[in-house]
């Protein structure tokens, strides 16, 4: 019994700490803005559904229903637009990453001191800038 327990115990310890020795070192990237917007989108949709339900049950006058529905739909349009914009921004970052993987081109020779152009607003920033001085967008660490 005791020998079995000791072997089992050591086996368990080994299994638990084994991931620490794998050299994945992968730093998990955090995508936060999209999640917030998805939240808001889902919320507006549920509100629209609720509204349709209330109206179907005769709890709302036609006029109230139309007015509030228009307001919700406008909100939904705004949120979806911002989401699409964000997804486009991610695409830009992806393209930049691919370009980098392609290796050094002629521009690499002068890249060290080259200014950075913001993806969002196009403003010219110094080479070492972490944030765009015009619109505040963070420069991706690629």
């Amino acid at each position, binding site marked *: *019994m*005791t020998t079995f*327990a000791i072997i089992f*115990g050591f086996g*368990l310890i080994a*299994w*638990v*700490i*084994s*991931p*620490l020795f*794998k050299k*994945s*070192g*992968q*730093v*998990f*990237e*955090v995508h*936060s803005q999209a*999640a*917030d917007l998805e*939240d*808001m989108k*889902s*919320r507006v*949709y*549920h*509100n*629209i*559904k*609720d*509204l*349709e339900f*209330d109206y*179907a*049950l*005769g*709890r*709302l*006058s036609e006029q*109230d229903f139309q007015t*509030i529905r228009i307001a919700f739909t406008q909100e*939904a349009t705004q949120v979806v637009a911002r989401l699409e914009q964000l997804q486009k921004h991610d695409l830009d970052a992806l393209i930049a990453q691919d370009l980098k993987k392609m290796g050094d081109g002629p521009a690499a020779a002068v890249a060290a001191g080259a200014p950075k152009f913001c993806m969002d607003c196009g403003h010219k920033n110094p080479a070492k800038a972490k944030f765009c001085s015009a619109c505040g967008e963070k420069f991706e660490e690629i």
Partner: protein
Amino acid sequence: MSEFGHILLTFLFPLTLFTAVTAFLAGRNHRESMYQAARNGTYAIWIVTTLAILALEALMLQGDFSNAFVYGNTNRALPGFYKIVALWAGHDGSLLFWTWIITSFSALVVYQNRNKNRELMPYVILTMIGTTVFFTALNLFIANPFDTWMQNINGVMTPVAAADGRGLNPLLQHPAMIIHPPILYIGYVGTVVPFAFAIAALLTGRLGSSWIKITRRWALVSWGFLSVGILLGGKWAYVELGWGGYWAWDPVENASLLPWLTSTAYVHSVMIQERKGMLKVWNMSLVIGTYLLAIFGTFLTRSGIVSSVHAFAESGIGPAFAAFIVFAIITSIGLIFWRRKELSSEEHFESLVSRESGFMFNNLLFVLATIAVLWGTLFPVISEAFTGEQITVGPPWFNTIMIPIGLALLLLTGVGPLLAWRRTSIESLRKSFGYPFIASVVVLLGMFFFGIRDGWALGSFTISFFVLWIIVAEFLQGARIRSKNAQENILTAMAMLTMKNTRRYGGYIIHIAVVVIFMGFTGAAFNTETRQEVATGGSFNFAGYTFMCIEKGHSTNDNFRTDFVDLQLFKDGRKVDDLRPAKRMYFASKQPTTEVAIYSTLREDIYVVTVGESEDGKMAILQIYRNPLVMWVWLGSLILIVGTILVLIPNYREKKRKPAAQQTHARHEVHA
């Protein structure tokens, strides 16, 4: 086997510490390797805890009375089934059981989220395993079920290998009592999951409604088990303890009610955050409060802190638990304060008569009720701190506060769902409440003329009627519209309506259950009782029934001796039941119990106990209660279970296209 158990617990404690620390680091540096280690740790913790439980059960079944826990809670004559469930009959075993449940839930949560919510999970693990660290420490250092049974022999504590144990408390040898603790524990421990995700949300700053959506089912399951656990406890008290009631505002009862109150407020309040991004601080506070009250409740039940404040301090459990709760409160308040900007409301209240305001008042009433129950339960401790004397309050005090609050909440149950978001027009109010209000006034006058004069009973029945009308109207209205559009008969329409909107209609069914239970409670306003002496062959009348005593006698078996009275119950000349109230004396534990005899109908319960006998032993002295409407409480409980299951089921989605009558934009997908 006891040494093996000891080794397991000794191994378990550092493992939980390691996992908690690893989870914390994984949250800080986002490293995949750390996160993986924390997850493995969680699974390993569950494996070890399960082995510990199995070891303890082995000891119980083998009857190893050198173990203190086995000695104190089982004996040779105990049936095998009761030996197994005696695990949660005693202090140490039940705490280990608690630990096993939380480690199981932790492993389950980790498994459920193995491919999602990557950002929150490290801190979720940290919180759940952090709690586990505390309980494991208790299991190892203060309430160890693998301790040896020792007796004081000539001044020295000596291990004793006893030949037989002290047996299981006969009060616990009852089916309801067997399932009551596990059900309540699942409810209690279930509160840790939403709490863990809330803390993770605070730590990561992800304070949208994602943490709420992820834990929606966990919160509902926990609430469901708490509700059933509390009702089951009441049923057990009614059937076993023999004083004719099911709730006495006892500290132990209140301990289970407190987290239920905040949990109920929480499952409603989160709907506001999901729809309008409001009440974020409320929701954080409610979910944290529910967790803290669940922990508090566990210890109130187990350590007898209020019935004897001195025992609380001496047992060792008390100070440890107090420290843990204080630590948790300070950390939680600190986190909320740190994130107060992200927790500000995205929209604002526009009108007192809106659904948002309704929910806010709902929260307020539940929180006031919680504070009141907490205050009343802890009043002896509070008053001693301020005046040096302990002052207690009893059921009359609790009822004075809780009945009005309960009725206000009941009213809100009917009114709330019909209020519109933002602002409800007078027109809409008239349409929704006009008929039910008039009908309720008619019912009220009817009851008054029928002879009912008790103010609170009149109020309760009237409001119950009002709410029932509204809920049934909700079902009928929706079904009528659907049956027209979808060409279904009204019953099919109602079923389909419910299955396609389980959240809403399951919730309505739960509300119906609450109304039924409330009406059951109100019956207590009309309780009557009597004391009668009767001998073999005698009879008497009470409450419109005739009681005939067939035999007053006694019998014996291996386990206990019974003194019984065989009665036959007659109504309108017809026999309706046989009743056998009795007193038992259990030989092993030398403990007496009361066997209650109950004749239950929808209208009333006839509840009979023996309270003694005449000096010559010929007459039995009986106490008989007439308790109207008690069955409604248990019926309502069943309806509540059905409603809760419904709410948990996902909406039924039809595979075919929806009829053109319903407007649906092709692009828009509704997330469940």
